[in-house]
């Protein structure tokens, strides 16, 4: 006997069918700034995109939360250390824009 999920097809969300937001820079900046502010318990206009997140007192739960939300929104696996590897909002969005452009190229190429 094996324990398989009993509801493979049940009311699960179907994220693949949901449209993935475009990874253009202003959109990314706006969204990420808002999420960083949420996890650091600040107002969005308080998060400066060029100030290191460490200066805002980011902890491991906030860093991993931000990573998870990027993955969820942009359907793009990222390292849990992204907020440390790319220490500011702009550094993260710059990196993401590149990754998303690569991904778009890949998706368009015939398989």
């Amino acid at each position, binding site marked *: *006997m*094996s*324990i398989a*999920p*009993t*509801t493979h097809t*049940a*009311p*699960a*969300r179907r*994220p693949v069918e949901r449209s993935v937001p475009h990874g253009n820079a202003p959109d990314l900046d706006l969204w990420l700034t808002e999420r960083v*502010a949420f996890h*650091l*318990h*600040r*107002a969005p206009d*308080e998060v400066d995109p060029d100030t290191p997140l460490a*200066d*805002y*007192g*980011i*902890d*491991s*739960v906030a860093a*991993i*939360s931000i*990573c*998870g*939300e990027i*993955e*969820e929104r942009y*359907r*793009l*696996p990222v390292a*849990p250390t992204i907020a440390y590897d790319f220490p500011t909002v702009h550094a993260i969005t710059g990196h993401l824009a590149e990754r998303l452009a690569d991904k778009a190229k890949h998706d368009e190429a015939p398989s």
Partner: protein
Amino acid sequence: MPHQPDPRTLTDAVRAGVDRHPDRAAFVYLHEDGLGMRPEELSYADLDRRARVVAARLRHATKGGDPSRPVLLLYPPTLDFVTAFLGCFYAGRTAIPAPLPDEPGERLARVSSILQDAKVGAVLTLPAYRQAIGAWLAASGEQDVMCLATGADEDDGADAGLWTPPRVGGTDVAFLQYSSGSTSEPKGVMITHANLAANQEAIRSAMKTPRGVVAGSWLPLYHDMGLIGMTLHPLWVGGTSVQMSPISFVKQPARWLRMIHDYRVEGTASPNFGYELCVRRVSEEQSSGLDLSSLRVALNGAEPVRADTLRAFVRRFAGNGLRPEALLPCYGLAENTLLVSGNDPDAPPVELTVDAQSLEQDELRPARTDHPSRTLVGCGRPKDTEVLIVDPMTLRVLPEGQVGEIWLRGPSVAVGYWNRRELTARTFQAATADGRAGYFRTGDLGALLDEELYVTGRIKEMLIQHGRNLYPQDIEQAVQESGDAFRRGGGAVFGVTDEASDRTHVVVVQELRPQATGDEEPLAPLAASVQALLSRQFQLPAVNVVLVRPGVIRKTTSGKTQRTLMRQLFLDGGLPVLHQRLEPAVAALLPATDTAPRPTTAAAPRH
């Protein structure tokens, strides 16, 4: 084989499961794979075979060595940890579960100190980490400690047949649990095979765990709640344990709920902060369609249980079939193997609103109208472990309704700390004033009322003011509820002593909400309002108030406020202060001479 007797050791339990249902999944591990979760299954038969391979290899490789030296397990969160842990049981060796020190920093320092403290005989890990760990052992001056790799790559299948069952006595130490202890040096709690069996039976009877239960969690495998409760307990009753890593959970808390839905999970566990994270971060879209009605037991322990969290979680997920009585506040600690007591799984959590002033005087009394009150959550009725409430100073046993130190005695209480005779004698062999002996002192404070255990705090964080006990979390909560400017959960209260007068001064460090940190001007009245509040509500004259930005209060990864660390940062002048009001005697304790309010976010110089 009908009617086998109940297992006596974990090894017996697993072997019984192998005989009865070899193909049943003992474990399912949900690995993040790209963006989805990929389940890895391990049947009872596979678990048994792989554990035998580990045991045979361990015995062969350490032949001639001292078999009493423990075996350190350094694994990423995978099922290879489980097979290696069981392999140590199969080899009759003492295991030490620990996290993989895969990056420099605090975790590496902690594992290094375990290595030194435990006099480890061998290290088990995955092939990919063997070289790095070998180098680390050499650098630590432990060249004679062997590092063995286990896992699929090394599994040629040939060794499994070489295994012979170990001769294990109930008093043999099964494993050492090094409590996270962020502040003090590591202490290895010695859990014997008899302790483990006793606590597994205690959990089974308290939770009414059915045979073949399906449990599921994201807790670390090397830590008591995740290990004893969520990994070994399902094995004990021939059930299935579904797991994912803490990182997978924190990235997307909804994954925990989806796991419960997908696998019809009946039992789960988390510290309070996990439930809070779900309330805060799971979207309606993510929770729609999830069925949580399979959940019978959702343990909440390992940190203070908050009544408002329980209520918010029940409210948020009632529409998903969550039963309010499934939420089960409990009290446990590594020194009692795990569980001390838990709420009845068929009844909703017990809340008790008491008079705040009486609580300060160590008594639970009904709340009075127009007087401050506190809501406590009951942690159930202790059954297998005997609980005494003892005055920590006079060692007198206290009657019902009085707050004192929680003392424990019973078959689940560990035999002591590894290689620490004096500390073991002091904490595990305590005697009451009237001569009752052999108790473990938890350092936790609580009271029994109608046999229900209420845990109220920790002794070492307690503030004693003119003979009154003040609980930091109560002062923190009162401050946070007094105004919108103060961030909930963003406070730390501690005492500092000035040698000159030998007086303890109360210091309140409180984070402000984002919108309150903008202007400098209103901060002075805010600080004054905190002083007025605490003077009125707690009769504390002139407390020291330090207002800071959000994110300054340090917490452990499980969400516990690190008051001792905050105290040290404060005394070092290392807090980025927005505004502060300090008594001259307290200001004199700090390195900086300038104690006027400084509108700065930069840390004060340390030298």
